[in-house]
């Protein structure tokens, strides 16, 4: 298990948990489709914000936020 900020570019990961502090940010992530179990495709991850694809939509997340999202590799077929 590692955080989304450490996920390599091009990989597919499954969200395990959101260690995000504030109710607002956590809630926002949930409602944008980033909740435990959802599959993220890491489009770009280079120092700046992390860009992922989730539910067919490309989204940019601040690095600080990405470092609080726990993920694991999605395995071959994904979800």
């Amino acid at each position, binding site marked *: 298990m590692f955080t989304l900020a450490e996920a390599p570019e091009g990989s597919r990961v499954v969200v395990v948990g959101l260690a995000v502090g504030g109710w607002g940010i956590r809630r*926002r992530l949930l409602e944008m489709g980033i909740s*435990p179990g959802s599959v993220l495709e890491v489009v770009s991850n280079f120092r*700046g*914000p992390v860009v992922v*694809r989730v539910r067919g939509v*490309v*989204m*940019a997340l601040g690095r600080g936020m990405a470092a609080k999202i726990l993920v694991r590799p999605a395995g071959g077929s994904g979800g």
Partner: protein
Amino acid sequence: MDAGWLLRYWSGPRVGAVAKRYRVAVVGNPNVGKSTLFTALTREIAHIANWPGTTVERKEAILRLDGVEIVFIDLPGIYTLAGTSIEEQVAREYILRGDWDAILVLVDSLAPERTLYLAVHILEVTGRVVVALTKWDAAHGKGVHIHVDRLERLLGVPVVPVSAVTGYGIRELTGALVRVLRCGRDRPLRVNYGQLEPALAELEREVEELDLGVRAPARWIALKLLEGDGYIRRLVAGCGASELLKKVDELRTAIVKATGRDPEELAVTYRFNFVDSLSREAVVRTLVKAEVGRLERLLLSPLAGPTISLMILLGLYMAAFTINTGFPLNVVLSAAGMEEAAELIEAHTLSGLLSSVFDALAQLVVASSLPPMLKDVLANGVIPGVGAVLSFYPLIFTTVFILSFLEDSGVGPYMAVSLHRALQVIGLSGRAIYPLLIGLGCNVPAVMASRTSPEESERRQLIFSIPFVPCQAALVVAIALTSAYFSSPLMRGAALALAYAIAFILLSTSSLVLRRIYGAGRPPELLFELPPLHKPSLKVLWWISWDYSKHFLKKAGIIIFGLSLAIWALTSYGPSGPVADVQESFAYMLGRALSPALAPMGLWGERAAVLAFALLTGLVAKEAVLSSIAMVMGSADPIRALRALSLNGCQALALAVIYTIYLPCIATMAEVYRESGSVRNTLMVSAWMLTSAFLAGYAVYWASTALGL
């Protein structure tokens, strides 16, 4: 209460009035194509303002059909009704307060799997909804096929595919709205919340006993209570139902114990499950995997992204300002010794052409047979005042045009990602690059461009720190001062660089301090969608720019005009009435009174009075500093007039710093006020700029004197 409110109550409930007036709230995710559809649907925005106490924009438009008048209220772009941002709070409050007759929800037909979520959420509140599937023209090309009638059946409300670009479906959409407005039933959608259902049923019964004064079914309130929504909790607490809240807490704990998951996480998951079931039944994707495009990937790549973004910005920026004011081409040309070419360019820019029109008008008035007193007021007060307002118009128009282009094409969000890191250093996000860059040309459209930021706190940060960006007019003054007193181009360059560096330091400090105030010191967090790039519709860009710039003229125009007139009156009147010599005017007296502020730099008496007077006149427009010094010193050439003040190098250097920063011009002040809605904050920023400019000026004077320059 404003007049619109009264009007609503006069015309609203009466039966048999000429046209029945309805209110429709327009809701959708950011990037769903809302402003585009809003413009296509209504053609003309009747009213632009901010939602009370926020910098969130509120647009209203009226559509008149036979026998019906529909007022559209554009709610901010949101993902949910949870209230995690100011935009969501504004939208949620509006919907719950119930000051609407129907809601128009926009769903992106290119991303129905995601954008249906908000629609479902709103349908749980009310059934008086019409769903519009936007960007329908592009859906088939991207391999997305939506069974409209199936979706209609599943949601229980009209679903209308539309395209703002081609106009497809617009008439059907208004037709569906009228039907819902006339005879739509308010039956909310029921989503199955599985493990939450028993708790929901229990709470629902108790909520029914309360009158919370909001327009939402008891089941929805119960759901929000279970989700731990603070806003709804406060509403319930306001009704004194502390027993109910205790029960909510018990149920929440029981759910966590039984399922190992938070109730809010469960609720969101069930809602997404429902959305997924909708997509399975009503959406077919023939291109199985919509890839992230090549251009999009390029914009996100580590090196090419920032480079391309900066190039796009610089290109657009140069185009906008060269058309309008000749900047920066004129400065480059005159620096290269081609003064004539620079002047020629300036004369043929939009501002140049406008000012020659107003000069001609003023001359016509002077030549007329009007009474001399009236002639003076018209030719020197009113006409230049109107000219000052209108000269900003093309600049505002082009800025809005470019902003809409960046947003509508989807390029803007990508640029924000690639430039984010650099701007985080000064407490801003990648979105801030555009307003900052525009500020180098003119602060007025730059303050307006603070709207590109998706975050309320960052918008306030930008509105109040942008006035520190030295604009083109401030640059002209600084160039004149340095050219008058430094012979070597190297020294001139260094002096200008110093002024800009100090302005940048003050800008960064202000931005960081404001971050502490508005954002609790945390850096602005990015969390937004990157839409696929597409070609924007010129027609729509034109509409939006036209609408916006018109509203600028109305609002800021009055303040700019009024203050220009006031400054003119101060410079042309003295204690004994109209004065021929400015040195007898009120403004000059005021300048003399303020001149001790320059004493720490070794400037006293007449020289200081002239300089302080010039500072006052520079409020109308910074470049006026030069013409007023020239006027007092009785020389047509500003450089010669400046030399006649016989300053020393250190004083010239310090003055260049002060003139670059000292205060926002009145047009910028008007815009800061218009965007922030706060007189107090506008004045505070101005006071802070004045103080810091003079302190920086003194410091430069003392340091350079000590160094023996």
